[in-house]
């Protein structure tokens, strides 16, 4: 039965509704099994899944939770990545400072896009964010070539960490565990944010923006903050990507990156918390598997994507949650 809320009228569980509690448990299970992942699939693939999972979570803060469509998320990831790479390359600082720089990079992009576009809705916001994303791509590609390395990107020397304990990031397994640790902490942080009073308002904006404004909330401010958080997580993902790749590459800023993150998130399920991670995992796994057999992996992946979306209307994780909820939860009521 539900826990008492200090009031016998309440059927509300303080931990959240059934789905929230189920997803939290699923997330813990994922954390427990994640250390075994690099022994099942290749270590680079496992690392990539964690990094892009975090990026997708940051992206879905806007798309799934606040209901804002962003087509320029490459900017957050890419600027985060270049901030990290440049501060290591020119400042010769350590990994921690690089990750901090990446997060701040994502934050600054969010502030910029927020100021310019947060009052715009739907397609207008999407187009402005796409345009700004492309602006960062071209800036990095040519006028700033002297600092960014242009088309070649920035290649970093081997990285390691001395504090709080020594980690040799050239070792693929150590690298994986380092990125997994950061990824788990960031995921937990986002979990807390989404279940806070603030996070609940995000969902209300998605459901009915006019009504929640009429309830007395300053919707623009809440949306702006949602964008800021999305930028922080996406920027951090960009920093982790640099640590993983040992380089910042111009592809990260290309609009395709913005498009692929939409695919990953939708594939996993936007109206869920953990769906984007699942989506990123399935997408990257399929891509690496298919590309072993054929050079035309994009064709097959695209076809598979369509089949999966038709099969799982709410995304893989979203549809699974619906199914489990119907079978095991509502049958008990």
């Amino acid at each position, binding site marked *: 039965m539900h826990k008492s809320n200090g009031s016998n009228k309440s059927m*509300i569980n*303080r931990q959240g509704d059934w789905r929230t509690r189920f997803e939290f448990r699923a997330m813990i299970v994922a954390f427990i099994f994640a250390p075994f992942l690099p022994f099942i699939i290749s270590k680079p693939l496992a690392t990539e899944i964690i990094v892009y999972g975090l990026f997708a979570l940051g992206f879905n803060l806007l798309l799934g939770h606040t209901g804002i469509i962003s087509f320029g998320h490459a900017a957050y990831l890419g600027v985060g990545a270049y901030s990290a790479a440049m501060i290591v390359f020119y400042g010769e600082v350590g990994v921690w400072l690089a990750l901090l720089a990446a997060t701040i990079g994502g934050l600054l992009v969010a502030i910029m896009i927020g100021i310019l576009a947060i009052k715009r809705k739907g397609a207008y916001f999407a187009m402005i964010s796409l345009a700004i994303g492309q602006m960062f791509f071209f800036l990095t590609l040519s006028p700033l070539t002297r600092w960014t390395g242009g088309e070649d990107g920035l290649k970093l020397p081997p990285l390691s960490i001395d504090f709080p304990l020594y980690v040799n990031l050239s070792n693929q397994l150590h690298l994986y565990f380092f990125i997994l640790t950061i990824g788990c902490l960031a995921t937990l942080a986002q979990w807390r944010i989404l279940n806070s*009073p603030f996070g*609940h*308002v995000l*969902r*209300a904006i998605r459901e009915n923006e006019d009504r*929640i404004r*009429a309830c*007395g909330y300053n919707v623009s401010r809440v949306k702006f903050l949602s964008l800021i958080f999305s930028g922080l997580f996406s920027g951090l993902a960009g920093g982790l990507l640099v640590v993983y790749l040992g380089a910042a590459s111009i592809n990260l800023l290309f609009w395709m990156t913005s498009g692929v993150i939409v695919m990953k998130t939708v594939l996993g399920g936007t109206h869920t918390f953990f769906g984007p991670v699942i989506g990123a995992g399935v997408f990257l796994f399929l891509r690496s598997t298919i590309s072993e057999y054929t050079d035309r992996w994009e064709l097959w992946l695209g076809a598979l994507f369509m089949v999966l979306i038709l099969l799982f209307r709410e995304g893989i994780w979203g549809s699974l949650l619906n199914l489990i909820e119907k079978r095991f939860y509502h049958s008990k009521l």
Partner: protein
Amino acid sequence: MLLETKSICKYFGGLKAVDDVDFRLEQGRLKSIIGPNGAGKTTFFNLVSGLYAPTHGSILFKDKDISNMSINDRSQLGITKTYQLTHIFPRLTVFENVRLAAQSRHTIFNFWRRAYSLSEVNDKALAVLEHLGLLKVQSRIAAELSHGEKKYLEIGIALATEPEVLLLDEPTAGMSPAETIEATHIISRLAKELSLNIILIEHDMSVVMEISDEIMVLHEGRKLAEGTPNEISANEIVQNVYLGKGASRDA
């Protein structure tokens, strides 16, 4: 004076939706606005609640000019409205719908706390649900409610923001006669228990006559008459324009 409009106007291009309306609401009163379709009732509500800015004229709340205040700031001040077409959060639970409204009176810039652990907000939401008889359905998804329940939820969202002035836009629209009677009782009970000041738009004349302290009649954007229910039903101009046809149809 609690709430007052001074020669307020709202024009949409050439259409004078609300034209030079003076309106006064005193503390502790329930005042209804009636008038044929297109008389400007809902536009008037949108002006008071802050959805529209007036073309001319001013709105005073406790003698303070609020004409240019945003809808969210007016809600924080204590003026809120319900919507003619239900305007809820469809995929959230009934409890969460009302809890969100109650939460609007607290700071939300606390990112680490669990929303459901704000006991004060929970209790407020539950109290509102109890007032409206929605406790049984609190964990249902709002979109799954019956029409009547959605109407109550609509009122619940407004009530949970603890308004001083509540604007109800056709709360009984689409309800069966039995439901309408029940809703009427609930509204007049709420007005007394929560010492609410209510402005009501309603088509059902029996409801209006039963629960109003005062009535304002709008016609083509202008104020036609104003007075107690008895004065209004005795008013000849009103009978000609509105009540004569309306009363027989609604009866």
